C-alpha cells in the first residue's frame, strides 16, 4: 500500500539495559535518552510536532506513572502529546499515523520500563483474564514454556536448536554496547521445562527514543533516513486454549499488510524474548538463512519491558542509517505467547 506521505525514522537512542537502576527514577532514566535523540537531529523539544510515549503503570507500581516522565520531555510551552499503555512500538505507530494525517511533520517517540522494582514474571500475570486465569498466577516463563513445548511436540524445534538461537543472539550482542547479557552464556538449568535459563531474557531496566520525520524534513535531519514503507499490527485471541501456539498468524498478517513479502529483507529485528519465539516468528515471516536476524542480540540480550519493541524498530533503522542494511523488517510483540504483533518495513534510499 502506498501511503500519503513518506515518513522515516531519522534518529534513535537507547540507554544501556541494566539489571537494576535503584538510584534512578523513571524520569532520570528517560531524560538522557531524550537529550541524546534530540542532539542527533539538532531539534529541540519545542520543534517537535507530536510526542508519544509507551510505558506501563504496573512496572512502576503506581497509577499515572507516565505523567512524571512527561515532565522530563520539557512540555513547555504545551505540546501535542499522547501515550499508549503499551510497548513504545505502538507509540511509534500512533505517531506515524499522526504524521500521515499531515497534522505533524516530526514526532518524538519514547518508551521505558523498570522491571527491577518487582518480579516481572509475576507482574505480567496481571495481563491475563482477571476472572479465570490471573488468579492462578501462571507466570510469563511458564506460559512461554507451554509455547516452547508445543513447538517441540510439533517437530519444529528441539532443545539444542533453541540453545543455538540463544547462543547466536548473545554472541551478536557482544558488539552492542547497550546489551545486558552478552558473550558465552551457559544454557543453564531448567526454569520451566523445556526452557532453560539461557532460553529466557535477562530482566532489566532501560529506555529508548526515536525521532520520526516526513519527506524533506527527514532528508534534512538524517543522511540516510530509514523510510517506513509499511507498518501494521494485529491481535489474536487472548485465551491460549484457542490459539495454535506454534504459529503466529497475527505476525504474518501484519507483515503482509506492511508489505514485508513484496521483496526480500536483508535484516530482521524480532522481538522474541524467548528463544522458542524466534523460531515461531521466523516461520511466520518466511525468514531464511539469508536474512540477518537480530544483529543487536535481540530481546534475549536485553529486554527492558515496554521499550524492547521500540528498540527493535530503532536498531533496524540504525542499521539503515549506517548503511548496513537496505531493507529491514522490525517486529514488536505484546501479551502472553506473542498475542499481539507489530511489523514495520524500513528502507534506505538506493546507494
Amino acid at each position: 500500500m502506498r501511503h500519503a506521505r513518506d515518513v522515516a525514522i531519522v534518529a534513535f537512542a537507547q540507554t544501556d539495559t541494566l539489571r537494576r537502576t535503584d538510584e534512578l527514577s523513571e524520569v532520570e532514566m528517560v531524560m538522557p535518552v531524550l537529550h541524546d535523540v534530540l542532539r542527533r537531529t539538532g531539534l529541540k523539544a519545542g520543534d517537535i510536532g507530536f510526542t508519544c510515549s509507551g510505558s506501563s503503570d504496573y512496572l512502576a507500581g503506581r497509577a499515572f506513572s507516565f505523567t512524571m516522565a512527561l515532565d522530563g520531555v520539557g512540555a513547555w510551552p504545551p505540546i501535542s502529546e499522547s501515550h499508549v499503555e503499551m510497548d513504545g512500538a505502538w507509540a511509534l505507530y500512533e505517531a506515524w499515523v499522526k504524521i500521515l494525517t499531515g497534522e505533524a511533520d516530526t514526532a518524538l517517540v519514547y518508551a521505558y520500563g523498570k522491571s527491577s522494582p518487582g518480579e516481572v514474571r509475576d507482574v505480567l500475570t496481571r495481563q491475563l483474564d482477571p476472572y479465570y486465569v490471573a488468579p492462578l498466577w501462571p507466570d510469563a516463563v511458564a506460559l512461554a514454556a507451554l509455547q516452547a513445548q508445543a513447538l517441540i511436540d510439533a517437530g519444529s524445534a528441539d532443545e539444542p536448536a533453541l540453545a543455538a538461537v540463544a547462543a547466536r543472539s548473545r554472541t551478536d550482542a557482544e558488539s552492542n554496547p547497550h546489551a545486558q547479557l552478552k558473550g558465552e552464556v551457559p544454557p543453564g538449568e531448567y526454569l520451566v521445562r523445556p526452557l532453560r535459563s539461557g532460553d529466557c531474557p535477562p530482566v532489566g531496566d532501560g529506555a529508548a527514543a526515536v525521532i520520526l520525520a516526513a519527506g524533506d524534513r527527514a532528508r534534512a535531519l538524517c543522511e540516510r533516513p530509514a523510510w517506513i514503507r509499511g507498518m501494521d499490527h494485529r491481535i489474536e485471541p487472548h485465551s491460549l486454549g484457542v490459539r495454535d501456539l506454534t504459529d503466529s498468524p497475527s505476525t504474518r498478517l501484519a507483515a503482509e499488510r506492511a508489505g514485508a513479502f513484496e521483496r526480500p529483507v536483508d535484516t530482521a529485528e524480532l522481538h522474541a524474548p524467548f528463544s522458542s519465539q524466534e523460531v515461531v516468528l521466523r516461520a511466520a515471516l518466511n525468514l531464511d538463512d539469508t536474512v540477518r536476524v537480530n544483529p543487536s542480540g535481540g530481546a534475549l540480550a536485553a529486554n527492558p519491558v515496554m521499550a524492547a519493541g521500540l528498540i527493535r524498530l530503532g536498531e533496524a533503522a540504525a542499521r539503515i542509517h549506517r548503511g548496513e542494511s537496505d531493507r529491514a523488517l522490525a517486529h514488536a510483540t505484546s501479551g502472553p505467547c506473542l498475542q499481539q504483533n507489530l511489523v514495520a518495513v524500513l528502507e534506505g534510499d538506493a546507494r
Partner: protein
Amino acid sequence: MSKEPVAVVGIGQTKHVAARRDVSIAGLVREAARRALDDAELTWADVDAVVIGKAPDFFEGLMMPELYLADALGAVGKPMLRVHTAGSVGGSTALVASNLVASRLHSTVLTLAFEKQSESNAMWGLSLPIPFQQPLLAGAGGFFAPHIRAYMRRTGAPDSVGSLVAYKDRRNALKNPYAHLHEHDITLEKVQASPMLWDPIRYSETCPSSDGACAMILTDRAGAARSPQPPAWMHGGAMRSEPTMFAGKDFVSPQAGKDCAADVYRQAGIADPRREIDAVEMYVPFSWYEPMWLENLGFAAEGEGWKLTESGVTELDGDLPVNPSGGVLSTNPIGASGMIRFAEAALQVRGQAGDHQVEGARRALGHAYGGGAQFFSMWLVGAEPPTT
C-alpha cells in the same frame, strides 16, 4: 495534503451505575460496543480496527486490558491500540481512532473507553503513597480544591456559583437515561447543605464513582454516505499537554487548555466560540470547573466565567448549554468520561440526544482533561460535513 473527513455514525453507552455486578469487564465493554454497532447498523465484520482507552490499570487490577478484551471487542485479527492519557483518555482515544480514518489507513474504526470502578476503590487508587505524593492528599478532590479556591480569590466569584452548576447538572441528568445519578428530589438547598469534603468542594459538587463504557463508530466519507442515521462530522480535534507542576504553571487556567481549544477552533473555522458553538460537553468533575473552563475555553473573558453560569446561560434552555447530559458530575466512569463528552457532543449535532437535546444544535464541543490539569483533548463536531 488532504485528510479524509471523519464521521461519527454509531454511539453506544451502558447505563452507568455504581456497580455492574451482573457483567464482567468484557461484558461491560461489549454492551457499549454492540449498541454503537446497532446504531450504525453495522456488524463486527465491518470494523477495521479497534482503539480502546481507560484510566489507570490499577483501578481494575488488570494490566494492559486490551489483551484480555480483544475477543470481547471483535478485535481478533485486527489492529488494536490502547491509549492512556489519564482523565483526558476518553477524548484522546477517540482522536487516535479518528486519525486512523483521517490518514486513510482504515475506513471504519470502533473506539471505546471504559471504567469499572466497582472492581476496586478509585479514591485510594489515586492516593499515591509517600514518597510519590505528600500525605493527606486523598483522591482528586484534594488536589483540585486549592485551585478552585485560587479561582474564587482571583475572580471574586461568590460562594454560590459551584452549587448552581451541581444543581443544573443533576437536573439535566434526570433527562438522560444513561446517567448514573438520578436524584429526583434534588434542590439547590440540598446541594448547599451537603457536607464539605475538600473546602470549597461539597459532597454534592463532586462526581460519583461509576461503572460504564462508551463506544463510537468512526468512518470515512463513504462510510458516512451509507449511515442510516445522520452522522456527526468532525471539524477539529486536538490534544495538548504540559508538565504536572512547575513554577510557571497556572492551575486555574492552564495554557495547554487554551492552546488546545485555539487549535480546535482554528481547524473548525470558529472565530467566536460563544456565538458559534451551540452546546458544550465539558469535563467538570467538581462543579467549580464549569466557570473555570468557560474562561479557559474562550467562552468568557478572564474572570467572567462565573457570571455566565450565574446568569443561567449554561442551563439546558440557556444560550450556551453546558453539559446537557448531566456531565461528569452525574456520571463518572473515569476512563470513559472523556469519550462520553465527545459522544454526547456528537449526539447533540445528530439531533439524537432525546430529552436533553439542545434544540437546533449544529455545532458542539466535546472536552476532556486529565492528570494535574495537564492533559487536554477536545473535538468539535457539526451536523454538516467540513468544507475544507
